[in-house]
């Protein structure tokens, strides 16, 4: 027996007690959807996990109405300190149920358990803890004293980090005093529904968070519904459609879209760590990462050595059962995504790039794609320009720092970039000239709730995380709310709307003290 063929070490599924059917989470309860229900499957073996309700336009309207009621009657009147208490409670419950959430995430998404256990779920808890701390300190969010919440936020999230994206959206929204209607991705609704159970456990007031499951139409209905804010993470195509749809309305919008990040390796880079960083940059989460370092730019004089070492390292990656604790590469999330990865890889070969895939056995069932690198890639190749969103790395070379910067910036995207060099001054000088929202130096794919995240150009606008992330869910005290503005457009005189939007100081303090009493009684 070979030691390296470690005996299976599967994480037990016994910790999960899943229901056979899940409804929509509206106004604090699970209710039936009026759309046609769908099945969620495990991408690792295509086995059915549960039946999920689908929300139609009326269901979405109900959810938004519930969120509106909760905003007006409870959440907007509650003090920041009390909102923070709820967020802390949610964060602790996420930690308590971490293993369960990790297993569910790997089951439904296909990502390896070591990532869901060591990255996704701990970051989810961290995000709630971080924003729980902000809830009573909004005066310091950079928008002046007493910033106000926007109202109801409609949030649509992708399937690559289902629970983490939920946390990125819900935590700052609630901390800032908004209520939420969230739509998880069609292929990965499971952990959002487990999260709904956590909200019930935390006794979060009904309607503050509503979760509507469904396909793209549900998301479109949510964007079109009576919400004050739209937050979306996903593909640039859908993001563009959303931007068009909300243009001309009072809805605020933030978009976190695709990317084609350059990972630049200079010849003085710490080579072994750079190899690890490249692997982590593109093969983390099967490359289903919007900020993945999918374009590797290597200085010419170390190109061959880096490629050689990279191939050797990729040969040691373990692909297989996502629930096995030793798995490095899990399953591709869906058949559709697998088809796209295959299509773009074939295009890469057709365009003349040289393809190399790690020698690993792919399971017969489920959706799998071996870690692949393309060498001899030119900047005009589609695999160097389009987002593959899979475990596929394009390797390009450069000669001078100027060339590296020019090539790195030559993309319609601008989400992230990486620089590998032992020379601090070079890192700073290059980072200064890269047009990307996030730049990692001598590391890649590291996230922290205190650090803002977001993109340039076609990678979207707005920032998530840190103090900046609060700005997406707050408005200065003097600004008019979207509803007030609409009321103005309808008929009422501006003065009245202003008074409505900006309660007198006396009134506000009265509200605060009242809700504080309520919080203390809990």
């Amino acid at each position: 027996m070979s030691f390296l063929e470690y005996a299976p070490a599967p994480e037990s599924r016994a910790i999960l007690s899943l229901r056979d059917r899940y409804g929509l989470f509206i106004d604090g309860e699970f209710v039936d959807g009026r759309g046609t229900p769908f099945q969620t499957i495990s991408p690792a073996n295509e086995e059915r996990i549960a039946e999920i309700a689908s929300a139609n336009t009326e269901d979405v309207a109900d959810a938004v109405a519930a969120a509106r009621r909760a905003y007006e009657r409870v959440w907007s009147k509650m003090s920041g300190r009390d909102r923070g208490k709820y967020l802390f409670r949610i964060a602790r419950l996420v930690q308590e149920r971490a293993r369960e959430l990790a297993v569910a995430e790997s089951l439904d998404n296909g990502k390896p358990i070591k990532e869901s256990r060591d990255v996704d779920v701990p970051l989810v808890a961290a995000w709630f803890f971080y924003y729980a701390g902000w809830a009573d300190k909004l005066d310091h969010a950079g928008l002046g004293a007493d910033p106000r919440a926007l109202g109801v936020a409609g949030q649509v999230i992708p399937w690559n980090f289902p629970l983490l994206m939920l946390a990125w959206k819900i935590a700052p929204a609630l901390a800032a005093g908004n209520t939420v209607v969230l739509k998880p991705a069609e292929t990965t609704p499971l952990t959002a529904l487990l999260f709904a159970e956590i909200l019930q456990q935390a006794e979060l007031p009904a309607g503050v968070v509503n979760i509507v499951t469904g396909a793209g139409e549900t998301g479109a209905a949510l964007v079109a519904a009576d919400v004050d804010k739209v937050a979306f993470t996903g593909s640039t195509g859908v993001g563009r459609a959303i931007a068009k749809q909300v243009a001309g309305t009072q809805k605020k919008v933030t978009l976190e879209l695709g990317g084609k990040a350059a990972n630049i390796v200079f010849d003085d880079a710490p080579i072994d760590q750079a190899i690890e960083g490249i692997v982590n940059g593109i093969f983390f989460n099967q490359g289903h990462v919007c900020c993945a370092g999918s374009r590797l730019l290597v200085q010419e004089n170390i190109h061959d050595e880096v490629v050689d070492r990279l191939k050797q390292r990729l040969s040691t990656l373990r692909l297989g059962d996502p629930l096995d604790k030793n798995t490095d590469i899990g399953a591709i999330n869906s058949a559709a995504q697998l088809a796209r990865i295959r299509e773009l890889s074939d295009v890469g070969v057709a365009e003349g790039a040289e393809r190399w895939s790690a020698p690993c056995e792919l399971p017969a069932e489920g959706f799998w794609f071996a870690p692949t690198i393309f060498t001899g890639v030119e900047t005009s190749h589609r695999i160097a320009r389009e987002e593959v969103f899979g475990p596929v790395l394009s390797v390009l070379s450069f000669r001078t720092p100027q060339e590296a910067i020019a090539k790195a910036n030559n993309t319609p995207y601008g989400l992230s970039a990486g620089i590998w060099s032992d020379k601090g001054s070079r890192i700073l000088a290059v980072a200064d000239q890269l047009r990307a929202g996030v730049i990692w130096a001598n590391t890649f794919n590291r996230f922290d709730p205190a650090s803002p995240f977001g993109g340039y150009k076609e990678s979207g606008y707005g920032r998530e995380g840190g103090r900046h992330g609060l700005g997406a869910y707050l408005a200065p005290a003097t600004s008019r709310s979207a509803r007030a503005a609409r009321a103005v457009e309808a008929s009422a005189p501006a003065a009245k709307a202003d008074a409505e939007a900006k309660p007198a100081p006396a009134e506000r303090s009265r509200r605060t003290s009242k809700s504080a009493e309520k919080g203390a009684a809990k």
Partner: protein
Amino acid sequence: MTGTTLVAARERALAVLGGDPDDATLRRYLHGIPGVDAVGLEQRAAGLGTRSIKTSSKAWALDRIISLIDLTTLEGADTPGKVRSLVAKAQTPDPADPGAPRVAAVCVYGDMVSTAVEALGAAHGDPDDGAISVAAVATAFPSGRASLDIKLADTAEAVAAGADEIDMVIDRGAFLAGRYGLVFDQIAAVKAACRRADGTSASLKVILETGELVTYDNVRRASWLSILAGGDFIKTSTGKVQPAATLPVTLLMLEVVRDWHRLTGHKVGVKPAGGIRTSKDAIKYLVTVAETVGEEWLVPHLFRFGASSLLNDVLLQRQKLASGHYSGADYVTID
């Protein structure tokens, strides 16, 4: 087991360096090696430490750990009786289970070599063949603060007494002062002193004492230097300085060994020593070896654990695996 010959080692070093191994040439070479990013290195080591080794893999790992141990006693208070007891334990680690593998070697001070050789009797030999070697620490261990003549005499005496392996310490003061040529020459000289009358040579382990080198960049340079000068093994620590062996340091040294093998086709061993006390930790090292240089390194002439208390923990785990329940400290023997 025989080490590489001195002449071959020197020729190889000259070919790699492209010049005589003086301070300037070595400095140019060692400082031209890419740096180490501490955060990244520690992250990678931590990642390797999360591998979950179960059932059949664990059983294999525990047996393999035993067969890679240099069972060590390096105390001022060591007595011939203590050494004989250590040798007995090395031969029969678990009296309740004759099937338990033997350790690779016993590691003692130079003056105890003859006692150990005598106690081993017929069991003395090459651990790759299932026998047990005698390793001796030499060169004014652990500080290395003595003249070269004394270091060489120390080494020659241990070899003459029957030591198969010499664990030498480098002159850390000279290394940190940038006198790489001096360190190189000393290692080469000790390597020459490892030579026996019949032309064979004891295997040389070069102790870097990583706890005193402090930075990972230094550890990487010292590793290259020791290999260039002809060391058959590079070893982390004496066990007398903290921190001793850590997973990141061992990973780093394995990376050097891997790169040296890529460069020359020649295999050098690695020995983490000091501070590895539990089976769980030792398994992390096996994983690190297997995933960095490959499984073929998990043999006594390419990987060792320098440890004393590790063996008992492994034996307890072995018993647990066989019986399904934990026994206790009194079910394994004290040294």
